[in-house]
């Protein structure tokens, strides 16, 4: 540790390589889009795939953000996160079915109203379940990863079974609201309306989350807590309460992701959450545990890659994401943007 720079209050400008380092992962997204363009060689298909890849990525991000923050803040790994996705989807879809008069009407206002009701219901229910989950399942096993994984997995089993008990064992089909059906044509590419809405909505969630994390005191506490929990407490903040809040918010976001996914697939099953979680885990790992920005980039990469590869070689889609994970872990063993732990 040299003291020389302290006398002259000028930050030494690091070399361009050092300064670009944190931004390298961001560049991966356009690089992947470009690679997709070259290998697909059909601009209109490429545009269609890019939009659906982004839509998928946004939904995965909405789900993964809560999971990664919960880990970063309290070192809790929640394998039951998938249950919130499923519950969100089932609650949201039930609301949409109950409001079929609104969703079936050819009015964008009424459609969005129904959608809003479904989203609020899904988030409220999954948030409440998350609160209970934290109290009953997670709280007794702080600091013990092995037990956390086992117990949250047990919670997932019970939650999935409860969905069967409440909604029956069959999958449910759900039609999109009237005005979100169909597609528009842009530069000769067919773009489903709903996917565009999902991209916009996901981007909105990301921006809102960034604003909360950057501009509010709660956000500062969360970011600081991910880095150094002890110091946040020593400053006078009750980190447990903040954590419960983050857990609830994360569960509600998973529920939101669930209803978005339900309308994307137009089909829901009790184990859909667990299937999506595979991609979520990949995203959380390659993004760097605890990093919201990393999860965002990771989710876009996974969504885009999944769609490009599914077009080029359908059977390789999931494997390609495993390959992506391996490649990124070889490059950065802690993920793309690990939060520096003090």
């Amino acid at each position: 540790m040299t003291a020389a720079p302290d006398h002259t209050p000028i930050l030494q400008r690091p070399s361009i390589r050092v300064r670009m380092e944190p931004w390298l992962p961001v560049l991966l997204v356009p690089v992947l889009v470009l690679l997709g363009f070259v290998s697909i060689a059909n601009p209109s298909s490429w545009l269609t795939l890019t939009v659906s890849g982004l839509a998928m990525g946004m939904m995965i991000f909405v789900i993964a953000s809560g999971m990664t923050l919960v880990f970063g803040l309290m070192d809790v790994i929640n394998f039951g996160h998938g249950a919130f996705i499923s519950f969100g989807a089932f609650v949201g879809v039930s609301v949409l079915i109950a409001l079929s008069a609104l969703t079936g009407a050819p009015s964008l206002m009424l459609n969005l109203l129904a959608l809003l009701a479904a989203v609020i219901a899904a988030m409220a229910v999954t948030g409440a379940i998350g609160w209970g989950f934290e109290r009953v399942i997670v709280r007794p096993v702080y600091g013990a990863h092995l037990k956390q994984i086992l117990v949250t997995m047990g919670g997932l089993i019970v939650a999935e079974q409860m969905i069967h008990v409440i909604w029956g064992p069959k999958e449910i089909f759900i039609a999109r609201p009237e005005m979100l059906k169909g597609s528009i044509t842009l530069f000769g590419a067919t773009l489903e309306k709903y996917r565009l809405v999902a991209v916009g909505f996901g981007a909105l969630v990301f921006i809102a989350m960034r604003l909360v994390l950057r501009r509010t005191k709660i956000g500062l506490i969360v970011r600081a807590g991910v880095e150094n929990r002890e110091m946040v407490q020593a400053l006078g903040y009750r980190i447990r309460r903040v954590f419960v809040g983050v857990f609830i918010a994360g569960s509600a976001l998973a529920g939101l992701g669930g209803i978005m996914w339900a309308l994307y697939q137009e089909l829901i099953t009790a184990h859909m959450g667990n299937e999506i979680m595979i991609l979520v885990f990949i995203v959380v790992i390659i993004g760097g545990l605890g990093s919201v920005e990393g999860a965002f980039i990771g989710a876009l990469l996974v969504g885009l890659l999944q769609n490009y590869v599914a077009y080029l070689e359908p059977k390789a889609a999931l494997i390609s994401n495993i390959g992506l994970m391996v490649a990124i872990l070889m490059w950065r063993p802690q993920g793309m943007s690990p939060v520096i732990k003090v």
Partner: protein
Amino acid sequence: MSEPMLRLEGVRTDIAQYHILHGVDLDVPQGQVTMLLGRNGAGKTTTLRTVMGLWKPRAGRIMLAGRNIAGQDPAAIAQAGVALVPENMGIFANLTVEENMILAAVSGPIDPARLDWLFTVFPPLKTFWKNPAGNLSGGQKQMLATARAMVEERRLYLIDEPSKGLAPAIVSTLARALRDLKAKGATILMVEQNFKLARALGDQAAVMDDGRIVWAGPMATLAGDAGLQERLMGLSMEGHA
């Protein structure tokens, strides 16, 4: 002077299965600077962390202005008016200097007059206000850590070895800032290995060894008695002086 700001009575702390503090008795008088001295591993840092609530004492009482805070949660102790500058500084590297300071101001927005004062004593903070704290140099980080504790008035400041690994110029900046803080009537309990700095700042001194206070009294007494210093702290202290 009636009641000390902080009084430790028979405080024992274990870390995992190891007994670190074996009954610490210590008074920190109000409005004075008390220096906690002793060789490495004597339990100085553990004492500060125990007062802050980061380690829970197994036994004993920790009286802050007459109220026992032993065993309370660190957030509650902080709210009761204790600020800590930890040994590793505890800077949030991903947050900017500004964000670090905003977080430290628990009760609301930072008081502008107080901030001006902090900028005068720690000029680099103003220069790098919008920069990530992780980019600061070691000395600047120590300034930020100290400024963070000073951003609001507290009953008691716990400061753990601020001079560690820093160049003399930075140490004198820190010393000036702490003298300023003391002039505002603050009560400080500080761990320090650098005896020159300790002597310059301290009103009272307490020497620890093996998890106990082995000597306590006015700093002047200790500073004026080389034989006592020798006996309490051995030669190791001379190296720093």
